[in-house]
C-alpha cells in the first residue's frame, strides 16, 4: 500500500476526507433549512435569497475564496469576531478549508434536498395533522424521513464534490501541507514541480476513484431508501 501511496498522497487524501466530511456535517442542517424555506415558505425576497444560495455555482471559485478571506480573514469582520470570542481561526486552517468547501458545495446539496422535498406528498402531512401532529412534530416524523433520499443524495454529492474543491480553498486558506493541502491542491503542486509527474498521476487516479465511488454510493443509497419507502 505504502509503495503506491506515499506520505504526501496519504496526507492529502486524509485531509481531503476530513475537509469534505466536516463541510458536509456542518452544512447539512443549514441546507435542509434553506431547502425548506425555498420550497415551502412564502416571504419577501425569496427570489433574491434563491439566487444568493445558488451564487457559488456561477461565481469563479477564486472570487468566493477571496470574499471569504475578506469576511473571515483574521482582520475581516466575522473572522476577527470569531477569533476574539471563540479563539477560532479560519484563515489558513483546515476548518477554513472546510468552510470554503461547504460554501461551494452548498447549492448542490440544497438542490438535491429541494427536489426530494418537492416530492413529499403534502397529503401525508395533512393526514398527520388530523392525527394530532403539530408543525414541528409533522416535520420530524413525516417530512424529514420522506426527504431522506434527497438528503442522502445531497450529502454524498456534496462530499464527493468537496473532496476536490480547489479555487476557493487555495484562495482562502492557501496551500499548507498537512493543514490545507487537499488532494487537488497536492495535485496542482505536483504538476508545478519538475519531478512531480508520477505523483500527479497517482493523485489524479485517487481523485478519479473517489469521485466515482461517491457517485456509485449516492445511487446505491438512493435505491436502498426508495425501496425502504416502497417507491
Amino acid at each position: 500500500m505504502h509503495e503506491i501511496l506515499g506520505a504526501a498522497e496519504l496526507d492529502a487524501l486524509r485531509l481531503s476526507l476530513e475537509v469534505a466530511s466536516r463541510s458536509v456535517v456542518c452544512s447539512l442542517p443549514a441546507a435542509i433549512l434553506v431547502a425548506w424555506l425555498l420550497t415551502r415558505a412564502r416571504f419577501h425576497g425569496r427570489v433574491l435569497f434563491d439566487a444568493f444560495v445558488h451564487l457559488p455555482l456561477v461565481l469563479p471559485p477564486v472570487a468566493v475564496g477571496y470574499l471569504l478571506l475578506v469576511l473571515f480573514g483574521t482582520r475581516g469582520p466575522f473572522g476577527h469576531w470569531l477569533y476574539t470570542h471563540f479563539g477560532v481561526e479560519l484563515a489558513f486552517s483546515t476548518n477554513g478549508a472546510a468552510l470554503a468547501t461547504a460554501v461551494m458545495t452548498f447549492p448542490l446539496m440544497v438542490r438535491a434536498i429541494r427536489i426530494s422535498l418537492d416530492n413529499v406528498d403534502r397529503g401525508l402531512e395533512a393526514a398527520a395533522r388530523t392525527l394530532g401532529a403539530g408543525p414541528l412534530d409533522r416535520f420530524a416524523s413525516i417530512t424529514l424521513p420522506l426527504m431522506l433520499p434527497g438528503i442522502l443524495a445531497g450529502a454524498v454529492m456534496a462530499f464527493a464534490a468537496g473532496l476536490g474543491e480547489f479555487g476557493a480553498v487555495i484562495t482562502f486558506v492557501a496551500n499548507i501541507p498537512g493543514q490545507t493541502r487537499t488532494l487537488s491542491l497536492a495535485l496542482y503542486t505536483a504538476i508545478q514541480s519538475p519531478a512531480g509527474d508520477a505523483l500527479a498521476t497517482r493523485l489524479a487516479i485517487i481523485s478519479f476513484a473517489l469521485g466515482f465511488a461517491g457517485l456509485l454510493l449516492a445511487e446505491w443509497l438512493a435505491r436502498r431508501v426508495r425501496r425502504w419507502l416502497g417507491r
Partner: protein
Amino acid sequence: MLSVTLAKRRGTFALDVAFQAPTPGIVALFGRSGCGKTSVVEILAGLLEPDAADVRLDDLVLIDRHAGYALPAERRRIGYVFQDARLFPHLSVRGNLRYGEKRAPATAQAIGFDEVTALLALEPLLSRRPYTLSGGERQRVALGRALLSQPRLLLLDEPLASLDAPRRAEVLPYLEALRDRLSIPMVYVSHQFEEVLRLANHVVLMEHGRVVAAGGIHEVSLRPELTAIVGPDSVGAVLEGVISEFDSARGLAHLKVGSGTLIISATAARIGARARVQLLARDLILATHPAQGLSVRNSIAGVVTGIRDDDNEAKLVTVEVGGASVLARVTRDAVEALGLHVSCPVWVLVKAVSMRSHEI
C-alpha cells in the same frame, strides 16, 4: 348533535352549506362528484380554511364564526379517512396505527390497540409495509389509524371509491361493524347510494355546493332531488323495519314496517334485527283492484299522495302504505288509463326477489 354552517368561495365555485345531524350516528354527505362534499369534510377537519363557518359537535365548538375562533386541525381530534388511505410509507402498519394513538390525549383513551386490530382484522398485517397491502387492506389500516387517534368525530371521504367491487364488498362489513359497536359520530361522504343505504341514518343531499335535501333516509329517499342525482333507475323508497319471521327453507323473510309487512327473499336473516330495504320505483306495480293469480308476493293497499313528472315518458307516484311512503315509476299512459289521482286507493305490488335487505 352535529351542527354545521359553512361558506367557502373557490373561483367560480361557491360552497354554502348548513345541516344538522343527530349524534352518534352516521350522516351521509351524498351528491355527485364535484358538488363540494370533500370541501365540507376538509373544512370540518381544519385542513381547509372556510370564509365563514360555525361548527359545533355536541357541546364542543370547533369553529365559531362570531368569535373568529377555530381549533387548529391537530387539536380537533377529528379522524379523517381519505379516499387514497394516505398511509405513511416509511412506517409499518403497526407504526401507522400507533402514530395517532401516541398523539391522542391520555384522558381520551376510549378504544384500544387490541380492540381496533380485532375489529378490523389487522393482526396479520401489523408488521407489513403499506406498499405491500391491497387497496382494501390499506383502507382498513387507515380506518384503524384514525380510530386509534381517539376521534370525537370520524370523517370518511369516499373510503371505498378507489376500490373495485369485490374490495368494496370486503371493506363495507367493517364499516358496518364500526357503526354498530362504537359510538363515534361519523360523516360519510359518498356518491354511491348503495353505501348510504347500508350505513347512514341521516342523509344530506348536496348539489352544486348547496344542501338540496336533508333528513332521515326514508324521508330523503322520496325526494325528487335524489332522483336528479342517482337517476331514474336507482330511485326508490327506503323502508326500515324489524325482521319478524324467517323461513330459510323457502328463502323468505318478513319485514315489519309500520303497520304492514313486506315479504322479501333472503338467504339469511336474524329475527328481531332492524333492517332496511329499498323498493326501486321501477320495480313497483300499481293496481286499482286487489290482484289475484299473480306470482308477486306483496300486494299492499295504500293511497296515492302525490304524482310528479319523472322524465318525458314516466311519472313517479307516491303511495302511502301503512305509515310509510313508497315510490312507483309508471308510464304517463298508465296514470291516465288507471285514472290515478291524489287520494285514490291503490294496491302496490312488489316481487319479493326484487328487494335485498340490509341489517342496520
